[in-house]
Every structure is written in structure tokens, then in C-alpha cells.
């Protein structure tokens, strides 16, 4: 009987396991994770999951794994992939034979170098991290957040909701400089400012220190910020060590082709850990850290583990929730030549990004609740269709995007 082993029990690995059964795979499936929990959703960890200090939001309950005949091994890291004899070795020495292997090993937080390892200096990736951070957030407490990306900003909003004072420190001239247009980042920053978050941009951090009772961010110019807790959110790096040790090709992540196959034909990789050629953007190699990408690649890789050989052709899609604002981005805007703005009322707006040939390559929107969701979704479909919509139609809220899609 064919045995498919999945290393990494996050959103992507779990999705792939279920998708195998949904497609009729009848062999053995083993899902191996290094955390003590069944697979859970990570997006809530910086949002309501943190605020409520809830148990993790599981992707599926234990009974669904049982019903789908998926063996789940938790709390054990995989240490070695033995490609010649086709088995993986777990911490503690247990070996598991595979016919096809999926690496969905995810990413881990980037570590700030001049940073002590201390209770009061934290990063956020796991449920355990969220609980530790939550324990130090309360009225009268102060948190210093290093990094003005999605994680740092979402955490800032949650900390304010819990009544803690927040200073957010960003090294670059503005927050969200990676992949979010300035116009939208400005809306986000302004909202944080109104909620009482102090944002310091262009900061050069010399060190982060802590003792048993306090933490401190020290700046190169001699200044400092004292806090009860420092959370560092300066990006993530893919978990490639085991793959690299096995001799798989690594290129900012485990390198896969458009079918998510690694340099070993029996091994695939998907989700945050892999870099792949992006079909709609001339095949440029990217690595995406996003929930939707983990889902979509998990679903597709299941088909390819069964021999479908289908290319991955999704358009990148991200979202972030802060206060009652939701930001959504479809596509990659960095090669845009023109930007067209569409106002949707109540402060919500979408920026459509077009390349030199007038092709829609990205759309970024922000608004309260799900104000921009429908149009961003339609924009995603227009991007996938390689459409060249009339900029005047894009800017006019009276023109339904669905009509452009049909055109």
C-alpha cells in the first residue's frame, strides 16, 4: 500500500492530508508535527486568539482525522530524511518509511541578533508563544513591538484592546513597506496613532535587553524604550534545515517546480517553507507566508502526490485585521506602473495596480469589516484572467467589476 508521509502539521500539511482523501487516495497517510497540538490556524494568534487566550482553533477535530484514516504524530520533530532508502527519522530514533513525502515545515520567526533570550523578550509563531505574550498584556502594562509588519501591527491592535500601552518600533521609514502601498499603510498607521499606539519609524536598534521584571529596546543614537515586554516581529525564515541536510535544492526556501515537486521526484514541498515559480508573474520565484497560500498549495500538492502533475496557478492573496479594519491584497504590485483608486464609501478604497501594458497585476484595499472583500476577490479573478481593464471603469464604483470579468 502506498504511504504518503507529511512532515509539518500546520494548515498546509493538514489540508493536504484531507485533500488526499477527498481525491480518493486509499493508501496510508501519516502527518507529523513538532508541536503538541493537532494542526491549528495561526492567523488568530495575533488577533482574537491572543486576546481571548483561547485554546487553538483547530483545523479539524480528532474525530475527522480518524474518520479520514490520517495518522497524526504530534510533538516530535523530524530530524532526518533518508532519501535513498526513503524514510524519515523522528527525534527519539523512530523511522517511518514513505513512498511519497510532503514537506510542509513552515517558517519560524527571524531572530534579532543583538537580543537576549529572556522571558520578557518574545516572538510570535505558536500557540504557546501567544499564551506567553498574553500573560504580560493588561492595563497598566507596556509592550514594545519591534517590527511594523502584519504580525507587529496586529499584535499592537490586540494589545490596545487588552488595555496595554504600545510602542511600535520599525527600522524602515514607514510601516508595512513590504508589499503594501504607502497610501494604505498610511491609513493603518493613522488608525494606530488614533488608538494610542506610539509608532517610531526609521529606528536603528542597537540591542534588546531584559531582566526578570522589565525589558528594554536600546537605540543606536543612545535613546531607549522601557517596557514590561518586548515582542520581536521582524519576519520569518523558512524551515529548510532537514531538507538541506538531505541534499534538496534550497533557494530562499525548499525549491520546487510549478507542480510543487522538489529536486527529488518523490518529495514535494508546500506552504511557507517552499519557493516556487509564480505562473502569473513570468515564473518569478517567490515564497509566500500566507494562510490562503498554505491552503491552496496543500490542496494542489495532494493532487500532485497522486500523480496529477498540475501546475500551481493561484494569485497570491493576503489579509490583515486590525481594529475594525480589514486590509486585503491580491497579486504582487512591485512591477506596477500605474495605480488607479476606487472609493467604496465609508473610507474604504481599493488601489488597482497595472503594469506597463495595462494588465491588472495587483489590487490592494482597506476598509471596515469586509468592505473591500468582494471587489478584491473579483480583482483576483481579473488578474488570473490576465485582463487589461479600462482604468476609468476600475476607478468608478458604479462599474461592477463582475461586468469587467465577463467582458
Amino acid at each position: 500500500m502506498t504511504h504518503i508521509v507529511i512532515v509539518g502539521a500546520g494548515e498546509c500539511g493538514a489540508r493536504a492530508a484531507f485533500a488526499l482523501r477527498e481525491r480518493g487516495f486509499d493508501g496510508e497517510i501519516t502527518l507529523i508535527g513538532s508541536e503538541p497540538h493537532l494542526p491549528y490556524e495561526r492567523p488568530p494568534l495575533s488577533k482574537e486568539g491572543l486576546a481571548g487566550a483561547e485554546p487553538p482553533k483547530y483545523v479539524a477535530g480528532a474525530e475527522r482525522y480518524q474518520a479520514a484514516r490520517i495518522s497524526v504524530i504530534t510533538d516530535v520533530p523530524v530530524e532526518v530524511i533518508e532519501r535513498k532508502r526513503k524514510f524519515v527519522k523522528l527525534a527519539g530514533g523512530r523511522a517511518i518509511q514513505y513512498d511519497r513525502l510532503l514537506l510542509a515545515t513552515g517558517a519560524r520567526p527571524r531572530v534579532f541578533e543583538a537580543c537576549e533570550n529572556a522571558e520578557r523578550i518574545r516572538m510570535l509563531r505558536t500557540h504557546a508563544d501567544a499564551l506567553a505574550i498574553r500573560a504580560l498584556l493588561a492595563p497598566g502594562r507596556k509592550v514594545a513591538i519591534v517590527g511594523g509588519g502584519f504580525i507587529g501591527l496586529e499584535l499592537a491592535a490586540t494589545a490596545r484592546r487588552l488595555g496595554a500601552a504600545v510602542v511600535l518600533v520599525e527600522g524602515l521609514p514607514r510601516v508595512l513597506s513590504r508589499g503594501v502601498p504607502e497610501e494604505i499603510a498610511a491609513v493603518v498607521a493613522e488608525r494606530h496613532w488614533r488608538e494610542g499606539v506610539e509608532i517610531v519609524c526609521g529606528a536603528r536598534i542597537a540591542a534588546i535587553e531584559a531582566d526578570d521584571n522589565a525589558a528594554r529596546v536600546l537605540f543606536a543614537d543612545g535613546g531607549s524604550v522601557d517596557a514590561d515586554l518586548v515582542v520581536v516581529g521582524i519576519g520569518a525564515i523558512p524551515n529548510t534545515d532537514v531538507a538541506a541536510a538531505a541534499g534538496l535544492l534550497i533557494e530562499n526556501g525548499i525549491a520546487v517546480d510549478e507542480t510543487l515537486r522538489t529536486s527529488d521526484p518523490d518529495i514535494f514541498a508546500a506552504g511557507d517553507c517552499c519557493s516556487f515559480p509564480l505562473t502569473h508573474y513570468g515564473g518569478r520565484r517567490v515564497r509566500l507566508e500566507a494562510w490562503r497560500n498554505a491552503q491552496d498549495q496543500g490542496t494542489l500538492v495532494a493532487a500532485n502526490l497522486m500523480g496529477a502533475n498540475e501546475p500551481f496557478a493561484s494569485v497570491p492573496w493576503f489579509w490583515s485585521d486590525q481594529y475594525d479594519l480589514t486590509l486585503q491584497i491580491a497579486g504582487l504590485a512591485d512591477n506596477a506602473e500605474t495605480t488607479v483608486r476606487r472609493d467604496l464609501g465609508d473610507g474604504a478604497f481599493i488601489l488597482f495596480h497595472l503594469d506597463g501594458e495595462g494588465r491588472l497585476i495587483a489590487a490592494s484595499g482597506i476598509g471596515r469589516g469586509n468592505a473591500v472583500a468582494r471587489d478584491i476577490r473579483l480583482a483576483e479573478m481579473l488578474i488570473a484572467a490576465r485582463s487589461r481593464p479600462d482604468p476609468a471603469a476600475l476607478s468608478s464604483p458604479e462599474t461592477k467589476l463582475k461586468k469587467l470579468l465577463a467582458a
Partner: protein
Amino acid sequence: MSSNWVEVCAADDIDEEDVIRFDHQGRTFAVYRSPDDEYFATDGLCTHEQIHLADGLVMDDIIECPKHNGRFNYKTGQAKGAPVCVNLRTYPVKVEAGSVFIAIS
């Protein structure tokens, strides 16, 4: 089982292949007009997280949640795959004298 027919809106208030939100007595519903000009109604919130489906996109007989793209057939309520696995409840709908009514049991 007793049902109350409740007036939702004028039939023209919903575009073809579109959806509106309808709140009634503390409950929220999504009311749809299909591309072939029929009307349907379901519970208003996605079964994955508490998100209003009326902010989502209708394509043929599918409603897609605006947050995580969970998909349902709004005619039958059937969940169409991850991340949604629990079906949506549906409600009878009728159009009379140019108005849409749903039966809330």
C-alpha cells in the same frame, strides 16, 4: 412546524447573481438572486467563522465567504470544501407582488 413569511425587500433590490443581508429579530440571513432569476435564502453567517456571507461573491449557484473563501451552494446550503465543512441552513423563499419573502421557522 409553523413558518412565518417575512418580507425582505423588493425583488429588484437584489441584482441578478448577487446577495443581500437581511436582519430580522436578532437573526441574520443572506438572500440571493441567481443568474437564472430565482431567489434563495440561507443563514447569514459562514459556518467557519462568524462572517456575513452577504459581503461575499455570488458566482452561479455558489456563495463564497469574503474572509476565507469558504464556498457553499446557496440553493442547497451544501458546504463545498475547506475551510468550510458544515452546511448552511436554507429557508423557503417566494416572490409575490414584486416583493421577496422568506419563511423563517
